[in-house]
């Protein structure tokens, strides 16, 4: 794993712990390979949008978010609160990028997302259509 991937992985573990402390659920990693898939993008790239790096264009951001949402919900790397963690990180990231979004609409999308029917590109497209 690259340094950025390791850093991202640790950040997600911290947020998983934070969610369990504040909201409930069991913190901890259920499947480390599934978690590695979340932070490793094709071609050896890393999921950098949550590390405070500003991506130069929205297309790259939505591509990373699509990847993150799909692999975290499909792989369920943590013992619990995987979708809660997804929503929290998205809410932080979209605000960080100063993008307008409706948190309730986003929450409905995350709650009802079926990774058997929606792939990472479908999720990226959702962000294109619902964030300004």
């Amino acid at each position: 794993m690259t340094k950025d991937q390791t850093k991202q992985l640790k950040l997600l573990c911290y947020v998983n712990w934070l969610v369990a402390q504040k909201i409930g659920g069991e913190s901890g990693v259920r499947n480390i390979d599934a978690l590695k898939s979340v932070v490793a993008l094709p071609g050896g790239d890393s999921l950098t949008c949550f590390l405070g790096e500003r991506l130069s264009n929205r297309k790259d951001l939505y591509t990373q978010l699509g990847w993150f949402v799909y692999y975290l919900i499909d792989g369920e790397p943590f013992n619990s609160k995987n979708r809660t963690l997804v929503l929290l990180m998205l809410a932080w990231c979209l605000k960080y990028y100063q993008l307008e979004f409706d948190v309730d609409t986003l929450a409905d999308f995350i709650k009802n997302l079926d990774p058997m029917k929606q792939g990472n590109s479908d999720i990226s497209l959702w962000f294109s259509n619902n964030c300004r």
Partner: protein
Amino acid sequence: MKRKIIRVGSSRGVLLPREVTRAMSWDFGSEIDLTVDKGRREVTLKTIKVSIPDDYDPDHLKQIEDTLTEHEDVLGDIDD
């Protein structure tokens, strides 16, 4: 202080006095770390500490925590 081993179902347990749980900020469901030193015949209970890695910006982590607080109702509504 002295405590007695008591029966809890088929297991053995020790009750923690209220002053201890208050002093340690432990409540029902709190996870604690238990270590056994056979040589010294000692058992130690400790609060589990989560440390933030050095290469993280505390402001960044604070922003995430603030986001959690801001949207706690919506986040708590996800049953997963």
